[in-house]
């Protein structure tokens, strides 16, 4: 376990007040500044979320709001975004999400198990205007069954609500699919209009928090979450697939 995490968790409550806390008063005595060295804990929880789905369903768009006019043209189009850290606050807790988008690795067998293994939340995306992306869902479910932690939260997202006129998959079809899988939530979204996008992540985090035992002391709890993650480093080279740990 990374000892830094312990250090950072010192400092108790009041995370949300950081801005006020450090507002002015540049002149501090040594003792004061030492006391302030570890300001409010950076986060209460750290959770990995992955976004999967067939090519072109808008996975990447769910991770970002707009993409034009950035350095991306020079860099991103050739380099690409690997992952993001995003912070949400829910129920007075500060939660850091590490969000992985698997775009570009859409072939089912090319997304290695490493992505799934540490994920506490899995967003499975299809395009409401493309039937084949909906028909691919069972194949994605197979991957999830095979590699993901059994308690990972699942959320099915029918994307591209902004293309309502081209819709071929009804809302009911999506709902029905999600209902067949225990614990799977469903919603429709439009990454283009940013409709439901933030809500998707909040909903997922809410579900994840619901599954966490609340009475365990904070520290222990956090450690148990962290231990489910791979190294909190950038994992560019994915380790070899792990054998299937789920029985049946």
């Amino acid at each position, binding site marked *: 376990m990374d000892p830094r995490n312990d250090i950072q968790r010192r400092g108790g409550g009041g995370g949300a007040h950081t801005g006020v806390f450090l507002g002015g008063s540049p002149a501090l005595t040594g003792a004061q500044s030492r006391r302030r060295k570890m300001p409010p804990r950076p986060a209460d929880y750290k959770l990995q979320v992955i976004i999967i789905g067939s090519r072109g369903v808008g996975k990447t768009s769910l991770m970002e709001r707009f993409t034009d006019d950035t*350095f991306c043209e020079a860099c991103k189009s050739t380099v690409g975004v690997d992952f993001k850290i995003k912070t949400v606050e829910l129920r007075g807790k500060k939660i850091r999400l590490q969000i992985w988008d698997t775009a570009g690795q859409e072939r089912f067998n090319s997304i290695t198990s490493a992505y799934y293994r540490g994920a506490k939340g899995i967003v499975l995306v299809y395009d409401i205007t493309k039937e084949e992306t909906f028909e691919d869902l069972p194949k994605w479910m197979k991957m999830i069954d095979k590699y993901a932690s059994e308690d990972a939260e699942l959320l099915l997202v029918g994307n591209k609500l902004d293309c309502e006129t081209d819709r071929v998959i009804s809302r009911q079809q999506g709902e029905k699919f999600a209902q067949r899988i225990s614990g799977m939530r469903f919603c429709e979204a439009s990454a283009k209009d940013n409709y439901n996008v933030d809500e998707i992540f909040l909903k997922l985090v809410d579900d994840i928090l619901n599954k966490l035992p609340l009475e365990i002391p904070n520290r222990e709890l956090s450690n148990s979450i962290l231990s489910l993650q791979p190294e909190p480093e950038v994992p560019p080279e994915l380790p070899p697939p792990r054998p299937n740990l789920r029985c049946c």
Partner: protein
Amino acid sequence: MESGEAGSPDRSGLVSEDGKNTKTVLCQRCGSKVLCPGMALFTEKELFLPSMRRKPGAPSGSQEEGAMEGDVLRAHWLVDDMYTFENVGFTKEVGKVKYLICADCEIGPIGWHSLDDKKSFYVALERVTHA
């Protein structure tokens, strides 16, 4: 290439006595919060960051790293754990470097991370705003 002199824009008020950021670090374009006050250490290190915006008329094709326009920047906020960030994006590697970008609007690079030093994440003061 521009010299990218990171000389000393007025930093009084940005750095606390113990070397931390006194203000919130934000994306220059969209205001997305990158770092909370007190979370990063001011540090000086010469790092090359490609330009935030491509020069008008510059070729749009892929460019070699060496040929990329950019600046050598010296003043950075340093954190040792990527979970210290409120919001940030990482590009895939260019050589052994991952660039940091805004997690929301993806402008960047705003920072630099080397796979050789897994405990160092730099955000260039010149590429962000402070509030």
